């Protein structure tokens, strides 16, 4: 161990700039998250099981109720949105709020770790976690149900980036507003479960009542999953208005900034 400490010491003076600090903090945060068993369950386990079960239940025959595509393809393509929503509404806010609750953010700030660096590292953590989780779910789905190749790969990528930005913004906003990890867990689940059910992860829109369908239309997840399905499968019944999740993300960013400013007083 002594040798390890000495080796670290020798490299110390070169890593003082903000980018290096953000990179170091991101690596640290990822290591900490990987040591949390609940992260694996919430981010990977839940979406993976649900998507694979739903795809298996409704089969592989194209169905008008699913916009004319095979239900397994419908759910597998939609799993991208399901995973990044779980990351944004469960993993990130709980992580940030718990950090705040026990004084970790205060400890970081007192040591000169700027708020900008901490937020940048949280965004990086969201991007990496979201991407890895999506890759794992898609690989598992492909192995089980033979997911077709995307009709418009760039479109899928574009909607994925918009979705990631939207849910990272929501995650940081929830983490900024909610003071405790328990509050973040409760609120996150309260928002995530109905959003998952009505936002493209649950029953197809054709099976929803009018009221539920209307609620589904205002959920950002519906538009992100709709956009991804359109780009991947070539058709969808889901809404896919690009500006809506962008507007939600902007509101989330403004909320996070306001909350942080109030805390700084």
């Amino acid at each position, binding site marked *: 161990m002594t040798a390890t400490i*000495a080796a670290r*010491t020798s490299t*110390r003076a070169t890593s003082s700039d903000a980018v290096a600090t953000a990179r170091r903090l991101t690596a640290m945060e990822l290591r900490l998250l990987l040591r949390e068993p609940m992260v694996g369950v919430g981010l990977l386990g839940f979406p993976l099981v649900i998507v694979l079960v739903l795809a298996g239940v409704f089969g592989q025959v194209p169905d008008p109720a699913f916009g004319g595509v095979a239900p397994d393809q419908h759910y597998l393509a939609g799993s991208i949105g399901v995973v990044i929503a779980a990351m944004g509404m469960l993993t990130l806010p709980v992580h940030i709020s718990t950090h705040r609750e026990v004084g970790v953010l205060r400890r970081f700030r007192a040591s000169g770790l700027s708020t900008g660096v901490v937020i940048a590292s949280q965004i990086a953590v969201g991007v990496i976690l979201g991407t890895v989780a999506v890759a794992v779910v898609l690989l598992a789905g492909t192995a089980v149900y033979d997911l077709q190749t995307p009709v418009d790969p760039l479109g899928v990528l574009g909607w994925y980036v918009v979705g990631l930005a939207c849910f990272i913004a929501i995650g940081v906003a929830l983490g900024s507003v909610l003071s405790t990890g328990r509050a973040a867990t409760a609120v996150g689940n309260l928002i995530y479960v109905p959003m998952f059910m009505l936002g493209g992860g649950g029953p197809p829109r054709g099976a929803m009542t009018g009221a539920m369908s209307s609620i589904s239309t205002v959920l950002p997840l519906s538009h992100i999953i709709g956009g991804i399905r359109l780009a991947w499968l070539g058709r969808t019944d889901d809404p896919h208005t690009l500006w809506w999740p962008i507007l939600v993300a902007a509101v989330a960013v403004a909320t996070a900034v306001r909350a942080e400013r109030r805390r700084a007083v």
Partner: protein
Amino acid sequence: MRTTQLVTTPTNTRRPDDPEGAADNLIEVRDLTKRYGSTHVLRGVSFSVRRGELFGLLGTNGAGKTTTVEILQGLRRADGGSVDVLGLDPGRAGDRLRRLVGSQLQDAALPDRMRVGEAIDLFASLHPAPRPLRELAEEWQLTHLWKRPFSALSGGERQRLFVALALVGCPEVVFLDELTQNLDPVGRRRTWDVVRQVRDAGTTVVLVTHDVEEAERLCDRIVVLNRGRVVADGTPAAIVESLGGAVRVQFTDPRIDLRPMRHLPGVVSVERHGSTVHVEGTGAVLAHVGAHLVAKERPAEDLSAHRPTLEDRFVALTEESSS
């Protein structure tokens, strides 16, 4: 509101063009005010901290100590007054200042699963020339805890880690807020020794505490806060001395003549209770009484004195300023 001001810096250390010694001040606080809603937390707090001293901010819970040091570190904004730390305004310099000072905060923690070595490594990376990590870990007895997660550390181990993190960047000034809370008596005294070492190595230490004994034993100079106001400023001895007239000397001698003792320097009163003689006085009254007994060839084996403690003075000051 009366403030006990007791100037303690030796005048021969001051420059001729700087009679107040302001050039030696690393921290200057003037008329600091802060409110939380309708509650006035700081009401015109002023003090300075000199280079190389172990400075204590002493007060009861809710006196405004933590708010003051949080403002000094730029973690809170003041409503009024001015603050200068290392020539910087904490409200503007923010992160830049916080990288120059060390900080051990009250009620701050690390992630449960973060290991000791990872924490030291991360915080060291924030500074251009940090302390050698091995040396720091050995100094604070953290070497054997290097891979232990934060959640598995005892209260004392956590405090040692926080102080090590505060010192990892070789700061000119270090803020230690309620440093020894949760420590057992042995750990407390060991920590005091190390804090003295930190001061002796040239780091200016600002110690925030409600523990009068800790302030008295450790600090070169103390500011006492009560209800957001400075009620005393000076060395522990000078603050105690300001209580005045309360040295009580006693010894056993059933036959000694008390009349000459009433004329000894510093003696205020002499009384006999049974075979015990009680003398109350100021200054070097103990020495004069002892010399008198020896001169009369009646040295008392149980001659003893009770001097007012800083705690006595602290209680008096806080009660006085609260009434």
